[in-house]
């Protein structure tokens, strides 16, 4: 990875990984590698996920009962563990998303006061 490429990519803020995982799982159950790939792909590879850190995050979410884990078979017929959003997780996602929007708007207004429209 060149330095230039690194500059283009953004390291994830603490805690946002949890939110992204929840968002990814809205589309359906997935295994770890698929989740990591989905996050990177959807962000046009801007977001850099150190894939290792995905696992502690998954366990954190399981512990909070926002997702659940079940056995399954991957697309290339390998045994894999699939993660699924729970009802509680779905509620949490809505909550976290609105919180995130508020935060992003607020930071946006501060950073670019002229573009923020009348306020």
């Amino acid at each position, binding site marked *: 990875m060149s330095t230039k490429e690194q500059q283009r990519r953004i390291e994830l803020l603490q805690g946002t990984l949890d939110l992204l995982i929840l968002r990814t799982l809205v589309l359906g159950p997935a*295994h*770890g*590698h698929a989740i*990591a790939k989905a996050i990177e792909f959807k962000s046009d590879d801007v977001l850099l996920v150190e894939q*290792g850190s*995905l696992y*502690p995050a998954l*366990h954190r979410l399981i512990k909070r009962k926002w997702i659940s884990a079940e056995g399954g078979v991957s697309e290339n017929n*390998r045994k894999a563990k699939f993660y699924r959003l729970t009802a509680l997780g779905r509620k949490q996602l809505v909550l976290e998303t609105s919180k995130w929007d508020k935060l992003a708007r607020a930071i946006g207004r501060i950073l670019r006061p002229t573009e923020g429209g009348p306020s």
Partner: protein
Amino acid sequence: MKRRDRVLQDLDQEIREHIEMATQDNIDRGMSPEDARYAAVRKFGNVTLAKEDSREVWSVVWLERLLQDIRFALRMLSKSPGFTAVAVLTLAIGIGGNAAVFSVVDSVLLKPLNYPRSEELVSLHQIAPGAAGLADFENGLLLSPSMYFTYAEQNRTFQSVGVWNAGTANVTGLGEPEQVRAVYVSDGVLQALGTPPGVGRWFSAADQIPRGPERVMLSHGYWQRRFGGDPTVIGRNIMIDSQSREIVGVMPKNFRFVDSDFDVIAPLAFDRGHVILAGFGFHGIARLKQGATIPQANADIARMVSIWMDSWTNGPNSNPHIYETWKITPLIRPLKQEIIGNVNEVLWVVMGTIGLVMLIACANLANLLLVRVESRQQELAVRAALGAGWGRILRTLLTESVMLGLLGGSLGVGLAYAGVQFLLSTGPANLPRLSEITLDTRTLGFTLLLSVLSGLLFGLIPALKYAGPRASLALRGAGRTIGASRERHRARNLLVIGQVAMAFVLIVSAGLMIRTFQALRTVEPGFTDGEHLQLMRITIPDSLVGEPEQVTRTQNAILDKLAAIPGVRSAAFTSEMPMEGFDSGWDQIYAEDKVYEDNTIPPLRLYKYLSPGFLQAAGTRLVTGREMTWSEIYGLQPVVMVSENLAREMWGTPSAALGKHLREIPTQPWQEVIGVIQDVREKGVQEKAPEIVYWSPLMKNPFGPGPIQVARTVTFAIRSERAGTEGFLNEVRAAVWSVNPNLPLASVRTMANVYGKSVARTSFTLVMLGIAASMALALGVIGIYGVISYTVSQQVREIGIRLALGAQSGDVLSMVLKEGAKLALLGVFIGVFAAFGLARLMTSLLFGVTAHDPLTFACVATLLVSVTLLACYVPARRSMKIDPMVALRYE
């Protein structure tokens, strides 16, 4: 738990799969399998960390890690048993000493007294600055019975209030006559203390009526000893001082009266119709009303003092307001403070010194650990390189030192137990609340805390030094010992300097105590050779011998019998020996050739009584004049003796006192001064000798016509080489009983015992500080020895080069010695300042020496510097023998 296990069980597998998939994706994008795998692994990051962090989500991981660290620490410790043994033993001594002293401090100073809501209990202490002579009287101005009635009836701040005093009583009719410890109480005392009786009842107000039914209560100990704990003793009668008294109750087992053990409690039964203003002989005790404060109570008493003066009289033609000149001021103290007295200074000093020893021990251990960690630097560097965070390494090292602390602490508890036993056996007999000292859960909690804290303290220095982020540098540097860098030694040098400084402070305080003891020994106490002076106290009660002259004749007969015992050189009696601690009489004295203004009371003087021959028996020096004779005593001749300081105060010189005349009150005929006696340290060697008037034991009542006055309770002093031996005491008892078989002997001891008790506080402090100081010295020497020899071993190569280049072995020796001397001098330098500040805290314990005694400071400094130089000399000698060739090959 189950969910956790299910989720975690195939984490390894899952991560492997993840990497496999990523590799496959990379291959699909056209990478070579090798590059694909490398990229996948790289993208995944630290696998172990991911696993550990995942596990940590399910927490209690900290516990697992702790257990892991503990196992590791124990393994490391067991690998170097020598180091572990030294460390644990050092700690055990330090922690044990601290735990023992803490248990004493806690039991004596911190715990509340053993009475219900004991914080409400106060002692009615009062002072009378206008009444000179009372100033150094330990008890201040005691209460008179009229004060008791006023305070009990007029107060607004007490739930109950009473007065008491302690003494002895003779119990007869239960086998051999026995002298027992008696406490006399007014109504209100037991109610204030609030401890209910174990059996029977308290005294009621009806028991306090004079000439009413006579009652008594027993202590649990006396009840067990004399009556075998028989509950039917209630209602039975016993003979106390030839008076039949009905037993109404027994106090419970752990009840102590204020701070004294006692056998019986009897009512004071004051006759309200006959009390006068005077008679200041009773201790006041009270329980404050809820919410009342000591300042309020003081104000309350101050208000009642004037009521007291208006309500009572000393008889017709006396002016009750003469006491206004005494400036009687209440100084109420919590009962606990009254009991603890001045021992708290001693205990805090001892606690402080033993705490310093602990710090020195910690410094030593920190040094040991520094050396140990240095040799493990490579291991630590490898662990850091393999990805252990420095926090983790710090934790590993601290776990190890805390484990050491805990091991030392558990051994220390055993030592503390032994230490407490030692303290109890050597501790001063007058240490208050001695019987309450135990090694309880509070002490164990303190020990645990101390163990952990000390582990953290001595572990933190090496841990911070080596677990830091720079640890990786060591990987390159370690293994070579080129030029022991100054930086590496700085921590150790600082520790040694600190140790020497702390040791200096401790040895100075021990030195000051030694000087105090020396000064005490040079004081002339007013008697000689206490080892061979046998004492005993005998009371002849009214009921046994009624006629006053007969009392003196009985005492005289006892003296004759005692003098006939083989080995007795002389025998005599007096109202009390110096330092015996019995309450003595104080009163003013008027001289014929002085003019006294009305409405002033001259200073109070101590009144004592002497039999002829006393000066010879006790070894007290007669300054001038002569002693009384028996014929003068029986003839009620108006003769008196005075102490040298009283003679000098009144007439300038002792010889000028002879032939002068004195009297106590105007109704008494003038008494001629016939002798002047050397000053006697009545209240202890450290206290100023009081001015004393020596009266005849038998004399006309100075208060006018009335019965002749006689000293019924006296101390016999027998000068004999055989004093204190059992055979001698048997002969003494037989001699007394041949005169009157109903006379019990009390306080049988030698004058040396009495003297020892009086200096017990000083000698206790001396012993404790001596122990602490020698521990400090030993630890300090070990510390400096360790550092210097380690420095030498690190400098082997440097020394080898110097020697190879032609340095003389003497140069090498002085180089090493200089290094040690530098540390020692710096330590002493800092120690001087610290000791200057700290020794001032000891001022109240010192006698005849200032807290900044230059001689002590100089001696201790010389001692410490020479001892540390000696400690350096051993490794320095070794350095001289270094063979340059071997040294250079050493790397």
